[in-house]
């Protein structure tokens, strides 16, 4: 089969099959809309609320990306320090793991009280807090497991630590970094939605979901879920595209 056709066709086909199964499940059980909406109910919801969907998607999207950018900057810096210094690594790991183990939903009221009314800021913060951990850990591991020979070929020539970092350590860690970024991007997305849904007077797709719940508009709720899934897929593949550009060398040719 043609590779281009396969790359697009197979995922599209699997999505179509999924929608058909969903529709059949609802139809076979005879569930009314207030139990579970079926895919055929969704177009109507999109048609009626399309402006809200566009606005909500944009709000969710930019706050997720902003949080993710913060996570990348902070995670890279933290990972660098931890990767190069054993002491920092030993000191920070328990703290980080502990922080990561806290369910982030519990932080929503904490953030809300700390920064009252700053809804955008709170949301970006949550996206950041939930997603920096995998980035920091993967960069730290990538740097600390760099084979000493790689360092030595430049160190023996008197290269500075910074030079070694830019020329060798950082590019060599990029595959791990993008692996972590794929995890982080979905996490950041979840963080954004969490705040949008939990906090009163929220914005974004999460708030739209909440209003669907308040008004018992179940097709709207499911339509939001699908929109979230689509947005998540878009973000994920944006990261994949960046990975191709910056770390494509790590991909082996198909054999």
């Amino acid at each position, binding site marked *: 089969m043609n590779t281009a056709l396969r790359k697009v066709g197979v995922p599209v086909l699997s999505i179509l099959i999924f929608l058909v199964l969903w529709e059949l499940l609802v139809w076979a059980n005879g569930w009314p809309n207030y139990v579970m909406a079926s895919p055929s109910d969704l177009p109507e919801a999109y048609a009626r609320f399309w402006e809200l969907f566009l606005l909500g998607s944009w709000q969710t999207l930019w706050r997720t990306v902003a949080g993710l950018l913060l996570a990348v900057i902070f995670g890279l810096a933290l990972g660098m320090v931890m990767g190069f210094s054993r002491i920092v690594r030993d000191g920070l790991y328990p703290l980080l793991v502990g922080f990561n183990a806290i369910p982030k939903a519990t932080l929503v009221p904490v953030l809300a009280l700390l920064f009252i009314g700053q809804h955008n800021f709170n949301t970006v913060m949550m996206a950041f807090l939930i997603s920096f951990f995998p980035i920091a850990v993967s960069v730290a591991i990538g740097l600390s497991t760099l084979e000493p020979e*790689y360092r030595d070929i430049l160190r*023996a020539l*008197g290269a500075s630590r910074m030079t070694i970092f830019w020329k060798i350590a950082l590019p060599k860690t990029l595959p791990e970094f993008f692996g972590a970024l794929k995890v982080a991007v979905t996490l950041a997305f979840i963080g954004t939605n969490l705040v949008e849904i939990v906090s009163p007077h929220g914005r974004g797709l999460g708030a739209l979901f909440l209003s669907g719940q308040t008004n018992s508009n179940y097709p709207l709720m499911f339509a939001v879920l699908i929109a979230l899934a689509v947005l998540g897929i878009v973000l994920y593949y944006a990261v994949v595209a960046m990975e191709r550009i910056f770390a494509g060398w790590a991909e082996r040719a198909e054999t």
Partner: protein
Amino acid sequence: MSDLIDIRGVAHAYRTPSGPLPVLDGLDIAIPRGEFCAVVGPSGCGKSTLTRLVAGLMKPDKGEVRLDGAPIRGPRKNVGMAFQNPVLLEWRSILDNVILPLEIVAPSMPRKERVARAEELLAMVGLEGFEAKRPSELSGGMRQRASLCRAIVHKPDVLIMDEPFGALDNFTREDLWQTMRQLRAAEPFTAVLITHDLRESVYLGDQVVVLSGRPARTQYVMNVDLPDERPLDILYTPKVGEMLHVLRDQIKIAQGRGEGPGEGAAA
């Protein structure tokens, strides 16, 4: 004073949780400029520590490592290193891998000159036409050739090699030995080669130094009295056979098996 590398009475111990672990004790090696010194010895006897000392990556606890008369105090621009693992950077082409040391040592050198120098070396080792390839597209032997080019691209005084041919199959290894001799004839470096292969040490070396078991001292030095022109067949002459025999016996002693009654004779 004509020795380029002069290692005198060097001792070194690593600090481990269970106390100091002496790896070198009484190491003496003198290598005249332009000579090729092969170092052999039992596994784990501190040979790699020796390479790090000569590269200036660490300092010995005792004794001195001198280069051209002056003690080595730290990394210098005029060394090149090659390891068993070719450690090529996967995100760079072969050409850009070879150029890497020039970016550190000669930052003001125009790209054109760097490329010309790298291409010259790559042609010398038979990698003409592979300049634009990625390391993952090359065989193990070819990667090691590229790694050697990178080690000498900046015309270092000293080339330090830590078992560079150790992971290759026999025929590829013999090919690389010949390449190594060609490079030596064309380039001015003085070489230190760590190896486990006695035939390799004799074929490539001007002198072979046998280290004792840990902590390593200089146990035996052999001057390799062979012509500069060395076809591979030379390894099968009686003269080389004798030399290998002597070295083999020295290794047995180094492993602590040569002097015991009967034990050495069993082999």
